[in-house]
């Protein structure tokens, strides 16, 4: 079954989406969208370092992401800059450094478009193995820290006072994000990873009655976007990474329709477009 490149792409993309859903919920709740961007931009620097030192690309991307996350924590305490200014500084510096470093290595010929936008149609069986092993690990760790991370999201001081160790949970969460960026880079590319984190979570918000349900719905929305996007790219011969993001966006827009809210309540969804708007 996995011999067909298209099936492999769907399986790999769904694996990534299952993991980005719950993590993306925390990104949305904690307003960390720009942080996700920063990590993924730093990934390009990781690629350059991997070529320079002849080490595994995923390992290098993960390491650089961790360094950037720690640098952010450190700078937030020391420098007198706001978090968003620091993130912008780190994000684009890392991206620019990566591009410059790659340009210097004239002996390296790499597919820059593939890095920026991903190449999901080129995933191998071993890539799938890494995605599912890594994804299962990330989800298992997330389940372990879920309660303290969630308590820290609602109110860090309350979590700290009642013994939930929010700092530890926050740090582990950053490591998990770094893992996901390293894994997902090949699928959607560094420029679109954040989209897969945020858009499914935003889509799920409308339907979820609780945080755990929202995480589950975000995973499902992500898988739907991957499947829809891949079929779309096959149909219209469009680049697969961006098409997946477009599919996610369409799902989000559908979730905004009043019909969608009524469907959850079991009403006559089809005929109630206008009724949905009246309170």
């Amino acid at each position, binding site marked *: 079954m996995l011999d067909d490149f298209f099936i492999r792409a769907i399986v790999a993309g769904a694996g990534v989406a299952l993991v980005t859903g719950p993590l993306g919920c925390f990104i949305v709740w*904690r307003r960390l969208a720009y942080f996700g961007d920063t990590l993924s931009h730093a990934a390009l620097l990781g690629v350059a370092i991997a070529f320079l030192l002849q080490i595994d690309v995923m390992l290098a991307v993960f390491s650089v992401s961790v360094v950037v996350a720690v640098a952010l924590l450190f700078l937030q305490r020391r420098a007198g800059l706001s978090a968003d200014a620091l993130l912008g500084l780190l994000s684009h510096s890392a991206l620019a450094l990566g591009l410059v470093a790659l340009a210097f290595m004239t002996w390296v010929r790499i597919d820059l478009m593939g890095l920026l936008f991903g190449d999901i149609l080129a995933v191998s069986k071993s890539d799938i193995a890494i995605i599912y092993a890594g994804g299962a690990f990330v989800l298992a760790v997330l389940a372990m820290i879920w309660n303290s991370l*969630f308590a820290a999201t*609602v109110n860090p001081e309350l979590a700290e006072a009642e013994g939930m160790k929010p700092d530890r949970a926050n740090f582990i969460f950053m490591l998990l994000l770094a893992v996901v960026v390293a894994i997902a880079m090949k699928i959607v590319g560094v420029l679109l990873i954040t989209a897969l984190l945020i858009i499914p979570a935003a889509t799920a918000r409308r339907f979820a009655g609780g945080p755990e349900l929202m995480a589950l719905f975000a995973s499902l929305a992500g898988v739907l976007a991957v499947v829809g996007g891949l079929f779309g790219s096959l149909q219209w011969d469009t680049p697969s990474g961006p098409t997946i993001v477009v599919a996610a966006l369409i799902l989000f827009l559908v979730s905004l329709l009043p019909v969608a809210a009524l469907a959850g309540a079991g009403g006559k969804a089809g005929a109630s477009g206008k009724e949905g708007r009246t309170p």
Partner: protein
Amino acid sequence: MLQSPQSLVRLEQAGVLRAGRWLVRDVDLDVQRGEIVTLIGPNGSGKSTTARMALGIVAPSEGTAKRAVNLRVGYVPQKVAVDWTLPLTVDRFMTLTNPLSRAQKEAALQSTGIAHMAKAEVRNLSGGEFQRALLARAIARKPDLLVLDEPVQGVDFSGEIALYELIARIRDDMHCGILLISHDLHVVMAATDRVICLNGHVCCHGTPQAVAESAEYKQLFGARGAAQLAVYRHHHDHTHLPDGRVRHADGTVTGHCHPDDGHHHEHDHHHDGENEKGDTRNAR
């Protein structure tokens, strides 16, 4: 280790320095099992900072903060902002830091009077309802130490009395220590075991009885006619400078407060910035 076996939390000469300014300094505070300690003082006097030192959220820059081993804390922070992107019902909020049975959740929500709101989203609650949810969540944990930072803000007047009665009852039933922060003493007075008045440092402290025996207090106490409605205000005659020194009413500046510094407990003085609220209370 703490010296007293019943002592839940103890601050000794504790202070917090931020950006060259002492938020609060020289605080001695001790909360024992089964007692209610009330912190009062004007805005910016270091009440919340003191509570956060006691909770271990903020480490003291000088002095010590010690907590009993395996201390179970219930905390009601002064401000909790729940992001609108977060789908959080009151029911889920109750189990934020520990699991609870359905019966435990219901009992706690019942006691604060919002059992009917269990399915409501937290961000849709009114200010008073949210305070009740915060309090319900904190007491459902069955804590050894309950720290309440202005727990009745936004609660209507009759609800306020009911919640203060509930807090006193919690102390009796659960035999926990309670550190209560209030910007004035008005209603808490009757249930409080000890009062600590802060204004950048500990200005005065003692049992409410000791305070109540002062002539000014008796006058007010009698006038109000009910222990639950005791009104207590006081006025500081010295100000604390950013460098920790103290400027007195006569213009002199010293390193510390004088023993005879005034904290007049008078009905004709107001807290700075709290006149409006004080007047409203009188009008009732």
